């Protein structure tokens, strides 16, 4: 009895840990600056986390299933380029739709490479990301693709509600939908089962292959959504856009407590991780502290989060 009670406390203490850190940061920043708790700053923070936030939701899905998607920013770039190209001829709706279709298709390629070709997901998606960016360069000749239609910029504009930008609403929508799918549906449970122990999932009659391919399709599709937000900011797209953002997203997920070994984590954790990273950046900004230290703090946070994950695992065998 005491054994399971202490185990429970251990899991809870971890939840409390991240929540506490976030609250502590908010309190500290509200007290030490008078610019933090202003509507302008908060709207700004929410707008700035949109892209990484969507990518963090995206990457968490394959991560829970025990695989990594390192091709997300490449997918975002390629689908954004196609979106603008198509939008310039057939309008924004066609452009946005094609972006998502391409994102899902590229995700499927990742999924097939990882499951049927049995390439380790790290290597497979690193390789496909090179391919995708290569294609993007070929398609654009290495040039920036500009949008003719200003309507794409809507995403970066404030909405009538509380002045929050449409991009933030998009993040909230993605967060809600993916969060519910992962936490409440049978498919979500299958993700955990596959990531937690592929063998057990197999014996239980769950298709490990199918579940993982679908996870990559979801991360691909969401990467395209993130690509659209990025494109709306500059009203253009180019092959090198967003390079490396997936690493920030993975780092955020890990800080939030998503396990690198698979089978454990939650969408809200990843989003909270993104918020934490952004709060730190914002704090440095408002306090006028040198930004070099910002990276030191963020890096230390990642090390701490991963070592905590390892520690909890080692303890419980």
């Amino acid at each position: 009895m005491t054994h399971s009670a202490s185990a429970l406390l251990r899991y809870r203490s971890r939840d409390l840990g991240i929540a506490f850190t976030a609250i502590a940061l908010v309190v500290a920043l509200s007290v030490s600056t008078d610019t933090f708790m202003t509507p302008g700053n908060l709207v700004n923070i929410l707008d700035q986390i949109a892209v990484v936030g969507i990518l963090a939701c995206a990457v968490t899905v394959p991560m829970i299933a025990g695989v990594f998607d390192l091709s997300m920013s490449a997918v975002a770039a390629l689908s954004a380029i196609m979106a603008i190209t198509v939008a310039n001829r057939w309008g924004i709706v066609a452009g946005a739709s094609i972006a998502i279709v391409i994102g899902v298709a590229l995700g499927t390629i990742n999924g097939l490479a990882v499951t049927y070709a049995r390439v380790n997901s790290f290597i497979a998606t690193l390789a496909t990301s090179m391919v995708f960016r290569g294609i993007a360069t070929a398609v654009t000749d290495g040039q920036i693709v500009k949008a003719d239609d200003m309507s794409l910029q809507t995403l970066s504009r404030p909405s009538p509600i509380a002045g929050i930008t449409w991009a933030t609403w998009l993040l909230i929508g993605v967060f809600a939908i993916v969060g519910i799918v992962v936490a409440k549906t049978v498919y979500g449970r299958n993700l955990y089962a596959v990531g937690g122990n592929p063998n057990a999932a197999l014996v239980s009659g769950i298709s490990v292959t199918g579940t993982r391919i679908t996870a990559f399709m979801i991360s691909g599709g969401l990467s395209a959504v993130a690509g659209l937000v990025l494109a709306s900011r500059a009203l253009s797209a180019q092959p090198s856009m967003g390079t490396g953002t997936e690493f920030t997203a993975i780092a955020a997920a890990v800080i939030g407590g998503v396990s690198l070994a698979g089978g454990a984590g939650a969408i809200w954790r990843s989003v909270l991780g993104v918020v934490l990273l952004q709060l730190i950046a914002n704090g440095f900004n408002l306090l006028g502290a040198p930004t070099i230290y910002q990276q030191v703090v963020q890096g230390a946070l990642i090390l701490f989060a991963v070592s905590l994950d390892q520690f909890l695992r080692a303890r419980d065998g």
Partner: protein
Amino acid sequence: MTTTAVSAPLISIEGLAKSYARNTVLHDLNLGLHAGRVYGLLGENGAGKTTFAGILSGLTHADSGHILIDGEPHAFRVPKDALDQGIAIITQEQSLALDRSVAENVFSGQLASTLGFVRTRALREQFTSLRDSVGFTDLHAGTVVRSLSQAKRQQVEILRALARDARVLIMDEPTAILSIAETQHLLQLIRRLAEDGRLVLLISHFLEDVLSVADEVIVLRDGAVTFAGPTEGQTPRTLTQHMVGRAVEIEHKRPTRVAPDAPVRLAVTGLTRTDGIGPVSFHVRAGEIVGMAGLVGAGRSEVARAIFGLDKISSGTVAVDGVELRRLTPHNAIRHGLAFVSEDRKHDGLSLVHSVRENASLVVRRKFARFHFRTVRPEKSAVGRHTDHMMVKASSIEQSVWQLSGGNQQKVMFAKWVMTNPTVLIVDEPTRGVDVGAKAQIYDIILGLAAQGIAIVIISSEIEEVMGLAHRLLVMRRGRVVREFDWGATSRAEVIAAAFGDYEQEDDTRDT
């Protein structure tokens, strides 16, 4: 009985064969299995039992032959295909999603849902009714599996197979890590399942268990059936004869007397772990075998792990040959001549991707090095000698350990530690999953090591084993040594009573 025998078999196996490279694991198997019966599947380590079970459940693929269910041929590509035909398996190696709840693991792959959404309440209710019908009442739906003991995890696996409501249940050594009471529970459950019309295929090295529960036994030897027929008339003796081709009798003789003034090699004083298990004090003299009995969870393995420095202690000392270990770490323990064969071969025993040779010589590798360069030939011959002695069945010592059968992995781990020439050897469940022949061999080896003056601590859930081997038997309960018996001075019933704690009332009040 006669009516079922006449009816057509539920599963017919025709000409089933399987080989790995040049190693033929199953030769032309032909069997008919009937609903409503319990079949015991026996055989030496590496005889092909797990391989057969794997083919029946879609985990492994046969090279040739057919599986007919109700007369219809079926080929199982993945376990789901077998599940669809009502065949569920409890695999030899545990496989659970450790970070998920008990209920989720049990109903994994078939969660109650509406429109794709999990019905959490229904899931809990389903779990509770299944659990109560089986009698594993101290499992709770919401507990995270990682926090459960090995035995409890095993119960989760059993429930998962039962949750399928399968017509056919295959259990690959399900009792290997269960205690006596839990095993009895499971055997009763197996009987009930058969009475409900299910077919149960039970793989086990515990001949008594099989004899008590099975209607029929099937014995495999080197991948061929050497006996298939009713349990009636069989004895452990005849079964071993079928398994190994000769009679193996495990008979425990009084161990050679230890001189009362023999030097104390291992002295443990007031050892208390940070999780509160202890304090435990005992000593082992040169040539002495000390046994540790107790229920699963009594703290025996925990004490052993702490002595070896795998887990932290809050107080107490460990001394080897009169020298107190200043810091308890595995490195230090090994330097002082301690060796520890742990109970969990997957977790801290073996590196599965490496070969038998690399695993066996891992601790002693320095001995086979000259100026830090490895010298392979003496290493090979030493490993070969030990693995032969231990009766490891492998195609060569260069075979990867993951390809070995479960029992053979266990023997490799034992060989690894015996090779270190220890002064103190602690063995935790040394014969788990090991066949009768090899068991007798391991007993001989343990006795032989003691005769050389090594101090031995043996932990086992098989009471006969510790009672038969040990000069002194310590019974642990709730983290303490509660009783001590000399060889031959007790009975199985008395040991069990001591382990359960119903022999001395006042002791109970002191503990709680």
